């Protein structure tokens, strides 16, 4: 197994994320998917404001950094101008579900041929760990010091489920987790294939870690991701236009870590 995908730009490593940050694992999964499809040289990779911007020099691919929440429309613009490009919009849950939620909804409604990746670490990480739409019930953050109370702050948003509820024909919607990197890489690969085949939009959420703002050690980081987060945010494909041999598929995912 290769530790670093070929699409990673080696001269910018070590990358700029904190120790134990899940962004590194989401981008590893994305790198694996890009390697398999051999698309790095025609990819335009958009990063948001938030910790996702630390990936501005991450890949051997053209990269653009946008205003907060505007990565989706910027990548759609590039894709519409140059349909042969592979467009990837990469952002946090704040960028995707709060300030940029209108773009997520309108891009899905229009079935724009891009891949949207939303990294769900349950908080606004770059600004110091404030509450996000995805913050779990009872979770303490900088702006919910007694824990998120649904009475005042609402329930955590299940983004892929929302998108799936009105996803047009040809769309691909999934939720993966950095605790299963290979499976997440499969979802991202399918999302990219969907775009290459000009079928429709692809939206993949990745459950991720932020030990810095969670203030967790390695053991508790895995625990929060694999127990609390995964209990509320189930992992799997929600909408898929691919006709597949489901038995083979199940066996394939079974061997994935």
């Amino acid at each position, binding site marked *: 197994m290769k530790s670093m995908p070929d699409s990673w730009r*080696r*001269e910018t*490593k070590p990358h700029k994320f904190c*120790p*134990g940050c899940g962004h*590194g694992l989401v981008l590893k999964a994305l790198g694996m998917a890009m390697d398999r499809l051999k698309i790095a040289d025609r990819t335009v990779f958009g990063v948001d404001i938030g910790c996702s911007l630390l990936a501005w020099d991450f890949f051997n691919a053209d990269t653009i950094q946008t205003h907060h929440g505007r990565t989706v429309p910027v990548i759609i613009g590039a894709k519409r101008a140059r349909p042969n490009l592979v467009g990837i919009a990469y952002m946090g849950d704040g960028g995707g579900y709060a300030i940029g939620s209108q773009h997520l909804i309108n891009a899905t409604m229009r079935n724009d041929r891009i891949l949207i990746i939303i990294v769900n670490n349950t908080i606004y990480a770059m600004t110091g760990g404030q509450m996000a739409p995805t913050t779990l019930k009872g979770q303490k953050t900088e702006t919910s010091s007694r824990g998120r109370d649904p009475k005042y702050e609402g329930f955590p948003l299940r983004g892929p489920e929302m998108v799936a509820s009105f996803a047009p024909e040809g769309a691909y919607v999934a939720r993966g987790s950095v605790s299963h*990197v290979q499976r997440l890489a499969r979802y991202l690969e399918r999302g990219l294939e969907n775009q290459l085949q000009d079928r429709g939009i692809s939206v993949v959420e990745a459950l991720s870690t932020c030990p810095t703002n969670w203030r967790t050690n*390695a053991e508790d980081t*895995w625990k929060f991701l694999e127990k609390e987060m995964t209990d509320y945010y189930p992992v799997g494909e929600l909408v898929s236009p691919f006709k597949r041999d489901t038995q083979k598929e199940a066996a394939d995912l079974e061997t994935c870590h």
Partner: protein
Amino acid sequence: MSITFTKNKWEGPKGVFIVSPDLCKGCGLCIEKCPSQVIDWTKETGIYGTPIVGAKRIDRCTACSICVLVCPDAAIDVEKNKM
């Protein structure tokens, strides 16, 4: 441009475990995920000035490569021995 990273190596019965001090940030995620409790802290520090890991119990390593997969910094390599 071809970039190479420094390698610390441990040779075991099933394969070679390699960690790069240029990449390891000492997060400890790999220690938790190794199913055979092979990995532990060393006295060396890495790129962030934090303690880095090594294969303290290399005899137990099955070369399963789970550690390679879970390292967010791609600091670990495992070369499986040819059977």
